[in-house]
C-alpha cells in the first residue's frame, strides 16, 4: 500500500496519551498504595510486620518504576527524559512528577535496603522511621500528583478538584488490596488460621489487630461516595464539563458502568461489607477475588478518565 493511504487512515482521532500513560497512573498508584500501607504497618506493628513490609517496600518502587517505564515508552524522545531534571519548569506538574517519582523510588528502595540489611532491627532505628515518614510523604505526593497532572492541563474532563482525590483513593485502595494478597500468598496468614489476619500481631496485643476488611470497605465506600459527588458536581461545573462527561458515557459508557462501577465498586463493597458486617475475615480466595476486581476497577477508572478527557468537545 502506498504510504499516503496509511497516513490518511491515521488522521482519525486518536488520543495523544495512550494506555501507557494509564499504566503509569495505575501501576504508580498501586505502588504508592502498597507503600503507604506497608509504612503504616512498619510504624505501628514495627518488626512484627517485618515479612510483609519488607515485601511491600520492594514491590512499591518496582511498581512505580514499571509505571515510569511505561510512561517513558510513550514519550517521543524517551532518552531525553533526563533533561526534565535540568530544564525544570516550576509551573509544570509533569515537571514535578519527574522529581517526585524519582525521589519516591529512591527513598523506598533505600528503605528496602535498610530493612534488608538490618532485618528486624531496622524497625527500631530512628533513621528508618524518618525514612519511612519521608517515603510516605512522597508516596502521598506521587498519589496526588497523578490526578493533579491531569487536572492541571485545563482539559474539561479533567479540570475537577475531585480528580486527584479520586485517583489517590483509588491508588490506596488498590495498593492495600495488593498488599493484602501479597501477605496472603507469601505468609498464608489469612487462610485456615481462623480469626486473625495477623497472627503475630494478634499474639502480642488484641487491641492492635488489623482488619483489612474494615480499611478496604471504608476505602471502597469513600471512593463510591467520591465518584457520586463528582458526578453530581459536574451538573454545576459548566457546559464543557457536562459535554466531557457525555463523551465519557457515549464512548466508554458500557465499560464505565460494568468495569468501574459494578466490578470496581459494587462487588468489592459487597465482599468487604459482608465480611465486615458478619465480622468474619476474608479467606484467601475472597481476598484474591476482591483484589482482582479492585485492580480491574482501578485500572478501568484511570484508563477511562484518561481517554475520555482527550475526546474533542463537540463544537470546537
Amino acid at each position: 500500500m502506498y504510504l499516503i493511504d496509511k497516513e490518511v487512515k491515521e488522521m482519525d482521532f486518536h488520543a495523544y496519551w495512550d494506555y501507557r500513560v494509564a499504566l503509569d497512573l495505575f501501576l504508580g498508584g498501586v505502588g504508592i498504595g502498597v507503600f503507604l500501607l506497608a509504612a503504616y504497618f512498619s510504624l505501628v506493628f514495627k518488626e512484627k510486620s517485618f515479612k510483609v513490609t519488607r515485601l511491600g517496600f520492594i514491590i512499591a518502587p518496582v511498581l512505580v518504576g514499571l509505571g515510569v517505564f511505561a510512561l517513558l515508552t510513550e514519550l517521543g524522545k524517551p532518552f531525553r527524559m533526563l533533561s526534565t531534571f535540568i530544564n525544570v519548569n516550576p509551573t509544570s506538574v509533569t515537571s514535578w512528577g519527574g522529581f517526585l517519582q524519582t525521589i519516591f523510588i529512591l527513598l523506598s528502595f533505600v528503605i528496602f535496603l535498610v530493612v534488608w540489611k538490618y532485618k528486624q532491627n531496622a524497625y527500631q532505628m530512628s533513621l528508618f522511621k524518618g525514612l519511612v515518614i519521608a517515603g510516605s510523604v512522597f508516596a502521598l505526593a506521587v498519589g496526588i500528583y497523578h490526578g493533579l497532572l491531569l487536572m492541571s492541563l485545563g482539559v474539561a474532563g479533567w479540570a475537577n478538584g475531585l480528580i486527584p482525590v479520586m485517583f489517590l483513593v483509588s491508588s490506596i485502595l488498590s495498593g492495600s488490596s495488593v498488599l493484602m494478597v501479597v501477605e496472603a500468598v507469601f505468609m498464608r496468614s489469612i487462610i485456615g488460621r481462623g480469626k486473625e489476619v495477623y497472627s503475630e500481631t494478634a499474639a502480642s496485643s488484641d487491641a492492635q489487630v488489623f482488619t483489612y476488611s474494615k480499611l478496604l470497605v471504608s476505602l471502597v465506600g469513600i471512593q463510591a461516595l467520591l465518584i457520586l459527588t463528582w458526578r453530581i458536581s459536574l451538573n454545576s461545573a459548566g457546559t464543557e464539563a457536562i459535554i466531557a462527561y457525555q463523551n465519557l458515557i457515549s464512548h466508554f459508557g458500557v465499560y464505565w458502568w460494568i468495569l468501574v462501577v459494578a466490578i470496581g465498586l459494587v462487588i468489592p463493597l459487597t465482599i468487604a461489607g459482608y465480611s465486615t458486617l458478619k465480622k468474619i475475615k476474608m479467606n484467601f480466595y475472597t481476598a484474591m477475588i476482591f483484589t482482582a476486581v479492585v485492580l480491574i476497577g482501578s485500572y478501568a477508572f484511570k484508563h477511562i478518565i484518561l481517554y475520555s478527557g482527550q475526546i474533542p468537545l463537540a463544537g470546537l
Partner: protein
Amino acid sequence: MTKYGMVIDLHKCVGCSGCSIACKNENNVDTGMFWAHYFHETKGSFPNVNYKYVPTLCNHCEDAACVRVCPTQAMYKDENGLTLHDPDKCIGCKSCMQACPYGVINFNKNKPHRRWEETAAAIKGGTATSKELQERTGQELPYYNADRAFTYEGIRSKGIVEKCTFCDHRIKDNLRPYCVESCPADARTFGDLDDPSSDINKVLAQYSSQVLKPEKGTKPRVFYVRG
C-alpha cells in the same frame, strides 16, 4: 518591548485555505499536520444557511497553557511575545497538546516526510519515485524551504511536537509571516501590539475584536474582527 500579535478580518476572509497551504510550504510541515488551519461550521437550515470559516493558528497566548505545562521548558515565551518551541529540549510528552485549548500543536509520531523515501514507481521505469526526487534535489523534501532552518529545525524530528512560530525566521528579517503575506484577501494584519501606531492596533481600534475561547484565560494574541 515588542509584543507580536495578529488580527484576522473574517469579513475579508473568503475561506480559500491559501494561508494553510502556504504555511505548509513555508515551514516544511508534513502531511496530516497543520500549523495554520481552520474550522468551519454550517448552521441553519435550507434556505437560511450560514456557513462560517475561521482560520486558526497558534494564538501565541500571553498566558500560554503549553508553556505552563511543559516539563522541560521546551515551550517558551520569547522576548517578543512569541510562543516558541525548542526542539532540542522537547521530550515529546505531549502535555502541551493536552493543555492547548486550540488544538494547534502537532506531534511527529513518525519521521516527517518519510513518504519521500519511497522507492516504488507508479509505472516502473517510466514515472519517477519519491526517492529519486530526494536524490535529484538533494533534499529530504524536494521543495524544502531552507529559510525555516534559520531559527528552528527545518524539518523537525520524530518524537517531538511542532507548531506555528509566527514565522519567526521571517519576522527577524522584517518580512511578514507567510500566511499574512500569502492571504489574497489581505485579511490578516500582523504587528507589534505594544506599538500604538502599528497597523494591527489601527485595525483593533477600528473594529471590536474577539479571541477564541477567552474563558480559558490564556489571553490569545490572535484576534478576530468582523466575524
